[in-house]
């Protein structure tokens, strides 16, 4: 049989198997639950989500005001006369006496005030929207124009402002000044259209639609806004995208995970493995139905939301990445509990990686490290380039591919049906892709292929530490970046060492360290030149990827790091892996400090 036929056969089996399992008595209940889900969603949409009810206590003396405030369930409104309110001041977050509000001054009271003024603003707008003379109610309109910066964005991201220190005289631009046409003093849309937009945007500000805005944002009105509409985009909007697109993907990949796990428990996998079908064909065949299924789900969702189909492009690498991880988790875990916890852990980390950068979608280019940002941009109608796509998805493609390769190499009896602890199994999995015949070549390749993972984890640290005040973020990033790199380089040596400690004669040790360091350097440079050039120009990037300049220095650094770890292993045994890593990390940090901050010199 040829490989494509094998794959097709196994894919068909997989579909048949899951359907026969499903139809037993899952399907009827699933349909009932689905109908219930639709009903409950409708019911909840009608009654609203009662999660934040009664958070704040407000005391009011006027029944009309009380009625106005009570329309927001977040407030428990007490209507009492002014003297009682003043006497019992501390029982309320906010009191409103004769139309004058006053707060307790706590964080909670401040939050109550903010919610209150938002509610009041909405109420005022609802009155103003009905005014015959719209421009008496809304006399000021702002047309936002964005100017593309001629300097790289990176100069400001570290918190330093490049704008010259404020001076008495107006700044003078360099070079030729392009003539900017004088903006038209009138709005290009009619009063009625504006009124419709105002009514719509006022109605939108409800609890649920606050999150759904991003999906239905009608940018047909141009950039005209009233001052109260002028605010940075709500970052929580992308929460909804995470749930809509990522959750079903995660859900489906669970089935794949379970299918792999079941093969192992029921030992059916053995029969499959005894056939002449290649392991890679089995894996691809088993993954294919899930891949297609996820793609269909995403397409369906996209069509349902009437979003451009372009958003499927950034979703495909995410699907690929999820499947690769699901496969490996299904192969690694020994019990259902372990499967649950590892998959929950994986999904949380992956979701954070996808979600946290994307909330800065309109604010900062760093958000592009998440493919989700491309989705947000597409839905907003902003364009992105092929470079952007490569930049945000290449790590997903590469790590997915490497994981699939590791899984394919390990898809055989002794790995699938072993009951060893997790860490040992991970080491065995790695050991499998380091054939004893070609130790140095495989170390070179392993450390090369660890680069996408290193970048991914470092990107995560970048996101994580980006929000810290400046000196701390640098310090943390410095330490973690070094640790991650040293760990990635050391893991191959450690794997070979625990398999065959005698292999490491001094000569082999030096060659192995050299191969690892060289592989790391080559892959790092390759990936950098393709994608990450943007980030690597910043202060942060220079810590992560310092070494674009001369090549022999970083090679020496990588070599020294691996050599330290390897020597520690040789002299002290496996226990010395962690201390070795620590020493290597310190050396790495010192090197970075020397070059970035010019210390020691």
């Amino acid at each position: 049989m040829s490989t494509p036929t094998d794959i097709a056969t196994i894919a068909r089996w997989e579909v048949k198997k899951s359907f026969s399992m499903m139809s037993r008595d899952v399907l009827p209940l699933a349909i009932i639950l689905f109908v219930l889900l639709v009903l409950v969603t409708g019911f909840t949409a009608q009654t609203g989500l009662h999660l934040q009810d009664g958070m704040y206590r407000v005391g009011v003396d006027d029944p009309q005001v009380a009625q106005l405030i009570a329309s927001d369930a977040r407030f428990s409104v007490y209507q009492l006369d002014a003297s009682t309110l003043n006497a019992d001041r501390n029982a309320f977050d906010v009191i409103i006496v004769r139309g004058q509000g006053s707060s307790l001054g706590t964080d909670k009271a401040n939050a109550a005030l903010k919610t209150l003024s938002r509610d009041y603003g909405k109420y005022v707008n609802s009155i103003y929207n009905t005014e015959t003379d719209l421009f008496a109610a809304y006399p000021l309109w702002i047309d936002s124009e964005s100017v593309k910066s001629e300097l790289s964005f990176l100069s400001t991201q570290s918190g330093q402002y490049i704008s010259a220190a404020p001076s008495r005289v107006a700044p003078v631009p360099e070079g030729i000044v392009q003539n900017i046409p004088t903006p038209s003093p009138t709005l290009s849309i009619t009063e009625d259209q504006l009124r419709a937009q105002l009514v719509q945007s006022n109605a939108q500000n409800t609890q649920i639609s606050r999150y759904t805005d991003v999906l239905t944002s009608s940018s047909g009105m141009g950039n005209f806004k009233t001052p109260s509409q002028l605010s940075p985009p709500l970052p929580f909007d992308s929460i909804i995208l995470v749930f809509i697109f990522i959750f079903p993907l995660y859900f489906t990949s669970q089935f794949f995970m379970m299918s792999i796990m079941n093969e192992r428990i029921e030992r059916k996998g053995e029969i499959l493995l005894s056939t002449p079908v290649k392991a890679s064909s089995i894996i691809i065949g088993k993954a294919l139905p899930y891949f297609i299924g996820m793609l269909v789900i995403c397409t369906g969702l996209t069509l349902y939301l009437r979003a451009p189909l372009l958003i499927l492009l950034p979703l495909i690498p995410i699907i690929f990445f999820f499947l690769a991880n699901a496969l490996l988790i299904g192969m690694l875990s020994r019990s259902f509990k372990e499967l649950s916890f590892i998959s929950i852990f994986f999904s949380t980390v992956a979701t954070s990686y996808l979600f946290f950068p994307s909330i800065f979608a309109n604010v900062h280019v760093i958000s592009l490290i998440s493919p989700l940002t491309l989705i947000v941009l597409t839905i907003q109608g902003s364009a992105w380039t092929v470079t952007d796509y490569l930049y945000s998805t290449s790590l997903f493609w590469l790590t997915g591919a490497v994981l699939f390769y590791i899984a394919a190499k390990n898809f055989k009896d002794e790995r699938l049906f072993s009951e060893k602890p997790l860490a040992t199994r991970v080491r065995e999995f790695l050991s499998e892709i380091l054939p004893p015949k070609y130790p140095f070549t495989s170390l070179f390749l392993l450390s090369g292929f660890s680069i996408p993972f290193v970048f991914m984890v470092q990107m995560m640290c970048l996101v994580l530490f980006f929000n810290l005040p400046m000196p701390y973020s640098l310090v943390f990033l410095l330490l973690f970046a070094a640790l991650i790199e040293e760990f990635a380089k050391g893991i191959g040596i450690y794997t070979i060492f625990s398999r065959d400690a005698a292999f490491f004669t001094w000569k082999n040790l030096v060659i192995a360290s050299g191969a690892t360091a060289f592989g790391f350097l080559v892959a790092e440079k390759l990936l950098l030149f393709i994608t990450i050039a943007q980030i690597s120009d910043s202060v942060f990037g220079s810590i992560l990827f310092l070494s674009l300049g001369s090549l022999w220095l970083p090679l020496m650094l990588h070599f020294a790091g691996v050599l330290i770890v390897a020597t520690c292993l040789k002299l002290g045994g496996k226990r010395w892996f962690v201390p070795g890593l620590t020493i290597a990390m310190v050396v790495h940090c010192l090197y970075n400090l020397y070059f970035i901050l010019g210390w020691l010199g």
Partner: protein
Amino acid sequence: MAWLKGRHLSIIAKKEFRGLLNERTILLAVLLQLFIALFSSFLMVGLTSMYDPSSLSKYSHYRYSVAYTGNDSQLLTYLQTSPDFRVYRMDLSTAVAALGQRKLAAVIYMPDTRPDALDPVKITLYTVQNDLQSAIVDVKLKDIFLKFEQTLRQIREGRLDVQPLPLQIPASTGGGDFYEFVYGLLIPLLVFMPAIISSALVIDLITEEYQHETLETLISTPITFPEMVWGKVLACGLLVPIQAGTWLVLLMVNGIAIQNSGLILLQVTVSSLILIMIGTLVALHYRERTAAQFIFSTGLVVVILLALAVPSNPLNLLTRLAVGTAGAEQWLVLGVVMAIIIALGYVTQKYAERIAKDHMTG
């Protein structure tokens, strides 16, 4: 009804705990919590600095350079008197070119429209695309624009038909930006997460006995089938306050004050039993993980959505307890939850007994 022996329950519960500890999966769970806690607190710092830049000291004394172009107006005075801005009178083309080179933070163009004109005043605001600083400047400019809008509105007041109910709400003095997000979303979700994890765990524990075919060995000991089931429910139930408690401690370490933490733990633990028992029933019915988890997670969404649609639901109660506005109604909710638990418990017991009987006879 066969009586459950406490000793047997604890044997099973201990066995499950040992399993969790042996596999070190529980470590993953704790690591996960730490990870999320770290991320949320960093997120807070990031968001706060984005929305309320003055909360970070390094931004507070910074004056942004803006260019004012076009015609004179009250807005120019407001900008000049603001402590946040340094205003330059410039010509539009030069100003925009300087903005592109980041020598300015924003450029404002004012047309020749009189304040009392029939037409609106349409100003044009130029800022740098995709930039953190622009976001901050936007927030600061917004206040000034609002002030200017108010001035214009007063000038045109005579042309309004209806006046809204007057209400003076003092500007809040910093802080409290993410209070609602933290207390009204983060805390209930995080504290309730252990309940969801535990109910998924009980499915794993029960289906594992079936799929690994270890059930026969267990039943051949003096431990009865219902005892085995309840032992697993107990183990999962005990995990909830431990994990939820960890959350509360982590949140408090992050400087988020939480009131009534004892009552919160009580509410979470009790309501988690509903989910755990639903999980148990589903697992007993399907005896196979994929199907059971699938049905359970779909059912879970239905149950949680339904709960959220009801006022004073347990999740809302968690929010209210955390901010200290929960009243006596919490005991009523607890009572209702207890009643549901007793009903579910009865069903679980009967079901387990029936399975045990089928097992003996068949």
